[in-house]
């Protein structure tokens, strides 16, 4: 179920321009606040734009933010975390400082600052979210590295005189990738939700590009009269993130021993 839904969303997002849809940015003034009609499957929004088409195009933006931000954060954080775990000492202390500084700085202020300094755009939002996710990935990768670094094959590689970079990329990285990827997968869902929250403050993906968060926030003023404007994108976001969480949980469970002693 979860896979089917997620697959459908991803496919729709990838092939959105090829699908016979309304233009997500062009208003149809006859469809303002309209409910479900044969022309507009999920109705129209406050400007009369087609909700279904916007939900499909919104998937592009929302997924893009989630995947790119996580990918970037995991790559940078994962690498730094491996360095911290492998070298320890000063490298580790400096990275611990960086981690704490990022965590002690309110994330929202950071995003606002990024948007204000670099301008409001999809890529700047991705950059901001990626930086905010780096500390967690550093910690995760560091912890995983500490475990692996004690294993025989790493010690053996060390004894052979392999260079640290080679050991990290060849021996350690393959063992760190799995926990980082598992966590990153869940983080994609988290960031889709975060983009929604940012949209509420007007800091999400800038209009007219449709995003789920932006659509939910856009329908807020008419919530009591025309709840469907917010409801449909909210439902789609809900199901998507739920699917991601379920798949993530199931993957995690495979590593978990089930029987308890109680």
């Amino acid at each position, binding site marked *: 179920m979860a896979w089917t839904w997620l697959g459908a969303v991803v496919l729709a997002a990838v092939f959105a321009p090829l699908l016979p849809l309304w233009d997500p940015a062009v208003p149809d003034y006859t469809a303002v606040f309209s409910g479900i009609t044969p022309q507009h499957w999920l109705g129209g929004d406050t400007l009369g734009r087609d909700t279904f088409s916007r939900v499909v195009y919104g998937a592009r933006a929302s997924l893009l933010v989630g995947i790119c931000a996580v990918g970037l954060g995991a790559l940078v954080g994962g690498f730094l975390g491996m360095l911290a775990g492998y070298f320890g000492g000063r490298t580790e202390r400096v990275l611990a400082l960086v981690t704490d500084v990022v965590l002690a700085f309110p994330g929202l202020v950071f995003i606002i600052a990024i948007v204000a300094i670099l301008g409001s755009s999809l890529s700047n939002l991705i950059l901001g979210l990626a930086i905010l996710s780096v500390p967690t990935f550093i910690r995760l990768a560091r912890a995983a590295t500490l475990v692996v670094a004690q294993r025989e094959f790493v010690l053996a590689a060390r004894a052979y005189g392999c260079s640290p970079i080679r050991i990290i990329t060849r021996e350690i990285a393959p063992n760190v990738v799995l926990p980082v990827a598992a966590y990153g997968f869940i983080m994609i869902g988290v960031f889709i939700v975060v983009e929604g929250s940012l949209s509420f403050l007007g800091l999400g993906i800038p209009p007219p590009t449709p995003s789920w968060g932006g659509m939910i926030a856009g329908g807020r003023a008419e919530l009591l009269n025309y709840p469907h404007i917010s409801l449909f994108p909210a439902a789609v976001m809900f199901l998507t993130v739920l699917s991601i969480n379920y798949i993530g949980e199931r993957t995690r469970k495979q590593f978990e021993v*089930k029987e308890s002693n109680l």
Partner: protein
Amino acid sequence: MADTLSAPPTTTAAGPATRRGGSRRFAVRRVRKRLTHLLLVLLAVTFLSFVVVDLLPGDAAVVVAGDNATPEQVQQVREELQLDRPVLVRYVDWLGGVVTGDLGRSFRTGQPVVEALAQRIPVTFEITIIAQLLALLVAVPLAVYSAYRPGGLVDRTSMTIGFGAAAMPTFVFGMVLIVLFAGGVSSILPATGYTSFFEDPVENIRSIILPCLTLMIAEAAVYRQLLRSDMVSTLQEDFILMARSKGLGPARILFRHALRPSSFSLITLSGVNIGRLLGGTVIVETLFAIPGLGQLIVQAVFNRDYMILQGALLFVAVAYVVINMLIDLLYLALDPRVRRDA
């Protein structure tokens, strides 16, 4: 933080006589090391915020002087606010003030920053702490029971609800709660506004119910999930089997034997969250029109009210640091092994 997350080693005892004094000395050294680290974090964060603020586009002097100000007036304001001096000089200056307890004045209103913070912090603090307590109150029993019967009805139901909670932005819950309790389905609670506890305790509680519920839902879901999985692995330990073989009942084993060794990551996360929320309840504060710290920060950014912003960021960083210290000390109290962790 980083080193508290590492697993405690299982070393065996050596010299018995000096152990007590040794562990205390160790604790002192550990705390001192942490203090140095956290002081560095404070310095780095405040300096970073100075740089970021400096990079923000828009001239504070223009904003403060007003739209109709002449270039001369703007220049005068700039000199008054000492904005013409380099970042580093201003930072050192500000730092000097901080040490003597002077955080400067708001560019816009002239109100002392300390006073502005003192008005806002209790509001955010109240909401944050109550939301955290509520989240733990809901999450801990659910997690314990879920771990006791993994895959059972409680486990699956609470997992599903939790996943749902994590799949929605906070403001959506807030909106749903408002529709349900404050204007839509029923109107038993105020939708917006905040009343101080000292003005009217009852109204205070009524005014924070919805914000706290909004904040706690997602937190509770994450806490339950985390504690449950830690607890499931604790329950596979031999010492749980041993406790069972003594004839102890499930409740005693769960709460007296398994909960404490399973609670470390929960405590860490909860601490991090309190720190994070103190500076980040912006969404809830905006939605419910609550005059908290988050709103102050966001307004300060948009108004280029640098002094207020610096002060608020300083507070958030200090809170983060203090909470980290507390977590560390809590670890020392909760896990006797950490006291020897060299």
